[in-house]
């Protein structure tokens, strides 16, 4: 498990370049869209003079490379700009919406691995059986189901027809206020547990259930399919037969030795599916009115809110890079042959 400081420094440096690249690309893309964001800034009843002044204030009258330069200077002095839509500073808005998304995505990933990996293993052990067929069909159908369609369908079924679950938001304000719930970290599950607030915890979990299930479907199916294929491959390898032949009980060989061989590459592949899940989170957050970074970005996109768009994209890029670094490190701790 050779993780050295050099590797961490290298990844941190590459993160800086990733962010620079993302800023440039996003900046150019937003600027070439034929839109007039100054109208949003000034409001519907602005005079032509007011609009012209807004263009100057927002530097929209300057060439694009000058605009980019201004943006970089502001960015590195900690000024991420003010949202043209909400008139609020971008950075605090993003930071306050981040926990909602992280809580949702992490729950989805825990659910995906907790269900997907056992499903894949049980399918592989009983290859060709009914369980195997069900898992195989489920993993193909699930992975090819569009996230937004499933989200709408489940919302319709569980919230509208059956009336079992609330359809939107992270917590019921009435329950939160009446029980004196205070969001400390922004992760409501942690906050409610820390405060021993059971009614809020139940409400939060009930509201998170559907979005997390929808979001977990793709990584769940991916991990189930990969786990099944990898387990079959590992089971046919010589070291499984030799361990059994030397006298290690079959169950121990399966759950200690084979399992680790399977989990290492599955974990590595989950890092790749993380990007897909973030995109899914955007849709899920809109449908379930989940006040996370996806919801914030989507609203900003719809109103050509340039500073907010670029700010959120930078954050998504940072999260993606950090998660992949973390998964690389995790992979290296599981597999001694991986050197970072």
């Amino acid at each position, binding site marked *: 498990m050779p993780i050295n400081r050099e590797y961490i420094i290298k990844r941190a440096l590459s993160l800086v370049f990733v962010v620079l690249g993302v800023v440039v690309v996003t900046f150019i893309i937003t600027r070439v869209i034929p839109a007039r964001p100054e109208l949003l800034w000034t409001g519907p009843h602005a005079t032509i003079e007011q609009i012209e002044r807004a263009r100057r204030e927002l530097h929209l009258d300057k060439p694009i490379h000058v605009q980019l330069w201004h943006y970089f200077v502001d960015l590195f002095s900690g000024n991420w700009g003010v949202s043209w839509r909400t008139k609020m500073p971008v950075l605090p808005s993003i930071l306050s919406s981040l926990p909602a998304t992280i809580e949702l995505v992490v729950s989805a990933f825990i659910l995906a691995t907790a269900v997907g990996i056992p499903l894949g293993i049980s399918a592989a052990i009983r290859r060709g059986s009914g369980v195997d067929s069900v898992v195989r069909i489920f993993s193909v159908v699930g992975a090819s189901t569009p996230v937004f369609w499933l989200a709408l369908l489940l919302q319709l079924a569980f919230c509208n027809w059956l009336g079992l679950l609330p359809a939107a938001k992270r917590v019921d304000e009435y329950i939160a206020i009446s029980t004196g719930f205070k969001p400390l970290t922004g992760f409501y599950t942690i906050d409610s547990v820390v405060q021993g607030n059971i009614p809020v915890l139940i409400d939060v979990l009930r509201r998170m259930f559907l979005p997390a299930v929808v979001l977990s479907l793709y990584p769940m199916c991916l991990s189930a399919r990969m786990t099944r294929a990898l387990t079959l491959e590992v089971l046919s390898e010589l070291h499984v037969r*030799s361990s059994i*032949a030397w*006298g*290690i009980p079959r169950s*121990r060989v399966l759950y200690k030795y084979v399992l680790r061989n399977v989990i290492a590459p599955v974990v590595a592949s989950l890092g790749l599916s993380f990007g897909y899940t973030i995109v899914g989170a955007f849709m899920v957050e809109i449908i379930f009115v989940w006040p996370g970074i996806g919801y914030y970005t989507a609203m900003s996109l719809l109103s050509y809110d340039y500073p907010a768009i670029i700010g959120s994209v930078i954050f998504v890029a940072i999260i993606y890079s950090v998660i992949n670094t973390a998964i690389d490190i995790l992979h290296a701790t599981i597999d001694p042959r991986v050197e970072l």
Partner: protein
Amino acid sequence: MSGTAILAVNDLHIDYYTFEGVVRAVRGVSIELCRGESLCIVGESGSGKSTIGLAIVRALPPNGIVARGEILYNNVDILRLSEEEMSKRIRGKEISIVFQDPAATFNPLFTIGEVMLDVIAAQLGVRDRRRAYEHGIKMLKLVELPDPERVMNSYPHELSGGMLQRAAIAVALSANPKLLIADEPTTMLDVTIQAQVLDLLKRLRKELSLSMIFITHNLGVAAEVCDRIMVLYAGTMFEEGYADTILTNPIHPYTRKLLECIPRASRRVSRLRYIPGSLPDLKTPVSGCPFEPRCDYATKICSVSPPLVRVVGHRHRVACHLAQEKGGV
């Protein structure tokens, strides 16, 4: 059945189920191994020799099925034992195995020590990690590995092929088995290392009074390590007897051909000898002798009916129509 037989394999048939059809890899092989004896199973690739070894420890791949026959270990048919009984009573502490590819025998994600301690814990019931560790170190010293502590904590990719094979032998022997199956243990090693590992196996066999089944395609190696030799071809036994009998007085045409193919430094020939032709397709049934297409002495009967096993001398058996039966002892 002789009373001192530690292993008796009777009329063993093993099939592999593949997409192309059923491969009849072993077709009625019988083995008798006395306590302390070593038997070499010699054959070309695909003759079924490794399959027999795997069947004796019940470690055939999932698509390999024993269709018929019995494997008596100390008069108990291990084919009738449950998977659990096999692991509890037989594997490791009675019968163990060393494989051809030392790098693939070890799980790449675990140290040699982890595997070894699991074998010791499961078979010798040593739950105390430190005592198990000391026993492991003792085994690594027994196979002449320098720096056993380092080997114990090494991952397979950190060791050379020769070291891994020694470690594999140590793990296989760590629960004191009485019978060791060595499945081409030197084939994938460098020539100089091969000789060392062979010497090691010979020494261990004497010191631990092991019975051994040594599987190889190399008659020269066979002569060096074993008391007895069995020649296998296309899943059937062609000839079996004491090593010196087989080497000096082979009866079966195939055995003779094999012997001619051993290159010798004393015999100056311009080209290496070989047996023209190849093994028959094991998916299609053979009506006569499987060697008939390649045999110089084949007669009409050879393509019609399979040769029966004849006893031609003291513990010397041959399956050939041309062999003359002698009263066996």
